[in-house]
């Protein structure tokens, strides 16, 4: 039953692509309804599959007589198939009217259907070859979706950046697949994971244990797909493509990196240093993505860098061993980023009517005759900022699991939650609202609801995606570092956070706000406004390669 369902879920968009292409001439723009209906059916089937899976029948494979083209329906693939289907359906429905005036209307829906089928095939791949094929096809299809407007060379230029980065990311995955096949003489992912968990050190490559090498290669493939630092430049520049494609890309396709790391979780569980590097790359990407996002004045480009930052967080979560949390993150990010892209046009329209910039205190006092708020004690506010969020976080997590704080990854996540909560309270304080305590209470209540929801949902994800508690523990252990080193880092980070907030409140109250002037500030601004010169560097590199190729051809007389 389940194996038939998973085959149908992939076949429906494929069939729809074929019918849309064949009937486009007869049905005109109505042909898109076939595409929407097929996607809707695919979503309904995915939902049924999830329901069956939650009812208890958890893992299995579709029947296949060949060594590849095997489909796998475990909790990860079932959940991801539903997420992809829902995002694709929203994009399909949005595109019905959005693309109505564009040339190549039917082609667009054919490509959307093929992309949906490829993405679902990727998450449901039960063998290495099917996974590599689907992974590769997603990059090719995205290139043509981004270049939907064939009259626009600029759209194709940036679509090419995406394509080549994705191809660079394909290669480590191919290599990983080949090494795994060489070692285990099978393409089947479940068989490989089973054999590997029984004896992780059975095989070596270049003097390293096989899981280490595979972990590195899989991480590299994931970095390219999820726009991690040094492989990120394509993401903010692909805004020339249609908005629905941007939504699909940011909500669904870039998340594939997180999925891939999760798919190979049994291998990462047997690595010793890889996850720490994954954490560092994710952390750098998150910081740089967030900084560059703040420096943009174009809403879509800003959203592009925001995605880079979010992908950084997602990868970072994998790096601390919280694999299921990364899946939760990519789903939530997909939903909100898709919404942001699809409503970007409305926001731009609104911004044309009102800039939305808050009025300053002087304006409110003189023009609106609002009395100035009574200043609160900076020390009291700083203490509330530091204590309330961490208390909420600790209590809510204790409800879920008593030994939660034994995991290093959990502590790192707490730091991020703490900083976010503190930032919320500080932002509330800076509004200088008349009734600050009331506003603060509402915000803290909202924060509490979010944290409780997040804690329980992420715990549910953990149990559903990784029912094997031993594997969960193994992942956290693989991501851990030596206890004494971790404790020292944790204490130093805590001191920095506490000192920073105290200083921030003191400086805010006393008016001693540091003004960053001079060369350092200008250099930093130049760096972020030029996006760390990464695009310039890659453009220069590309031109050099093409010029060298041309010179070689001239020298060899074009033969």
């Amino acid at each position, binding site marked *: 039953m389940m194996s038939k369902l998973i085959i149908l879920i992939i076949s429906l968009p494929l069939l729809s692509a074929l019918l849309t292409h064949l009937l486009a001439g007869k049905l005109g723009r109505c042909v898109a309804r076939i595409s929407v209906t097929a996607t809707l059916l695919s979503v309904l089937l995915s939902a049924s599959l999830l329901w069956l899976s939650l009812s208890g029948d958890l893992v299995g494979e579709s029947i296949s007589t*060949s*060594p*590849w*083209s095997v489909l796998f329906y475990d909790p990860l693939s079932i959940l991801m198939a539903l997420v992809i289907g829902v995002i694709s359906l929203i994009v399909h429905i949005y595109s019905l009217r959005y693309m109505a005036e564009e*040339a190549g209307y039917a082609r667009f829906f054919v490509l959307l259907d093929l992309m949906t089928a490829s993405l679902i095939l990727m998450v449901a791949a039960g063998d290495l*070859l099917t996974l*590599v*094929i689907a992974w*590769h*096809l997603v990059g*090719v299809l995205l*290139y*043509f979706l981004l*270049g939907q407007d*064939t*009259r*626009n*060379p600029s759209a*194709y230029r940036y679509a*090419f950046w995406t*394509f*080549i980065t994705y*191809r*660079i990311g394909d*290669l480590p995955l*191919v*290599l990983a697949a*080949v*090494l795994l*096949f*060489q070692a285990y003489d099978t393409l089947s992912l479940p068989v490989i994971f089973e054999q590997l968990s029984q004896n992780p050190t059975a095989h070596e490559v*270049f003097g390293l244990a096989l899981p280490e090498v595979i972990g590195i290669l899989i991480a590299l493939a994931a970095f390219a797909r999820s726009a991690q630092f040094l492989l990120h430049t394509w993401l903010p520049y692909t805004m020339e493509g249609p908005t629905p494609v941007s939504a699909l890309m940011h909500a669904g396709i870039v998340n594939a990196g997180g999925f891939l790391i999760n798919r190979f979780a049994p291998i990462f569980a047997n690595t010793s240093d890889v996850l720490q590097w994954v954490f560092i790359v994710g952390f750098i990407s998150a910081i740089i993505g967030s900084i560059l996002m703040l420096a943009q004045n174009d809403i879509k480009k800003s959203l592009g860098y925001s995605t880079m930052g979010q992908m950084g967080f997602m990868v970072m979560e994998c790096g601390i061993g919280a694999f299921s949390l990364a899946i939760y993150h990519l789903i939530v990010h997909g939903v909100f980023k898709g919404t942001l892209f699809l409503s970007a046009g409305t926001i731009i329209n609104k911004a044309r009517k009102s800039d939305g910039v808050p009025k300053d205190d002087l304006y409110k006092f003189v023009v609106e005759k609002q009395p100035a708020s009574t200043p609160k004690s900076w020390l009291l506010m700083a203490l509330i900022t530091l204590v309330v969020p961490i208390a909420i976080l600790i209590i809510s997590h204790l409800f879920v699991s008593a030994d939660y704080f034994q995991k290093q990854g959990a502590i790192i996540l707490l730091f991020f939650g703490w900083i976010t909560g503190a930032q919320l309270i500080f932002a509330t304080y800076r509004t200088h609202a008349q009734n600050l305590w009331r506003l603060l209470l509402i915000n803290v209540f909202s924060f509490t609801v979010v944290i409780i929801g997040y804690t329980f949902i992420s715990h549910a994800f953990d149990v559903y995606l990784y029912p094997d508690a031993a594997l969960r523990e193994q992942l956290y252990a693989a991501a851990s570092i030596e206890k004494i080193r971790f404790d020292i880092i944790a204490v130093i980070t805590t001191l920095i956070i506490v000192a920073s907030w105290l200083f921030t409140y003191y400086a805010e109250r006393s008016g001693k706000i540091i003004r960053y002037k001079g060369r350092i500030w200008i250099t930093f601004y130049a760096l972020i406004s030029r996006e760390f010169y990464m695009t310039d560097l890659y453009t220069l590199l590309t031109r050099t*390669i*093409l010029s*060298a*190729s*041309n010179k*070689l*051809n001239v020298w*060899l007389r*074009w*033969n």
Partner: protein
Amino acid sequence: MPDITLILAGLFLPLFPLSMVFNAVFDRIQHVALRCLLLIGWPQIGLAIIHSSDFTASSLPTWFIIWALATSLLYAFRMLSLRAVGQWNSFLATSMWATLWLSSSNTSQEMQQLYAFGISAPLVLLAFLSAGLEKRFGAAYTGLYGGLAQSLPRFTGLLVFIVLAAIATPVFPGFFIMLKLIINSSATMPLATLALLGIWLLWSWAGVKLLQGLIVGTASQSEVTGVNALKDFNLITSWSYALLLIALIVSSIYLTGGLS
């Protein structure tokens, strides 16, 4: 295997600078049927020479494999700056055929011949399309006219699929052949594996560059609708090409992909 036979085989499974012979011949021959014959027959002659001698995989020296990989890499790299479609086709053929030297170990003669045919088949189709461009525009050259997607939509659709097939995109034969070569080399020559991956990347780059130079841009109104509108493929021609591509995919999956 005698060195002279090896060198002769290196002319047909082209190794640089012997590869320049094939490219010069291909360039001189303008007739599309002859070009197709050359694309199909040239590597088969090379394979026939290899198998007519008492060749064993172990008798192939390592430097020969390096030479083959260097040739493939050289032509893949040079493809990046090509604008003539015919030349692009012959360079890709050279680059791909050179990799067949890596299949010499643990691959049967029939399989090697099938690989060579699998590589040549999309190139033959591309040769036909290249001739079609020359007929319509007087030259098959990227960046010269552009906007084919608007003026010749059916032709463009087929061109896209054929170029994708040529650069070893899944699920065309080149993809499975590359995977087999990578699997073969990874056990004994890890550096050759990395070189193959690099070559594959260059093919993709060159393929996309070729497509962008032909299909993207604004076609003039007269080319699209006017009295001088370019003649696109009719339905029968389009379906013939499409069926050939479908046959290529199906045979690729079953014969080179091992899905049987």
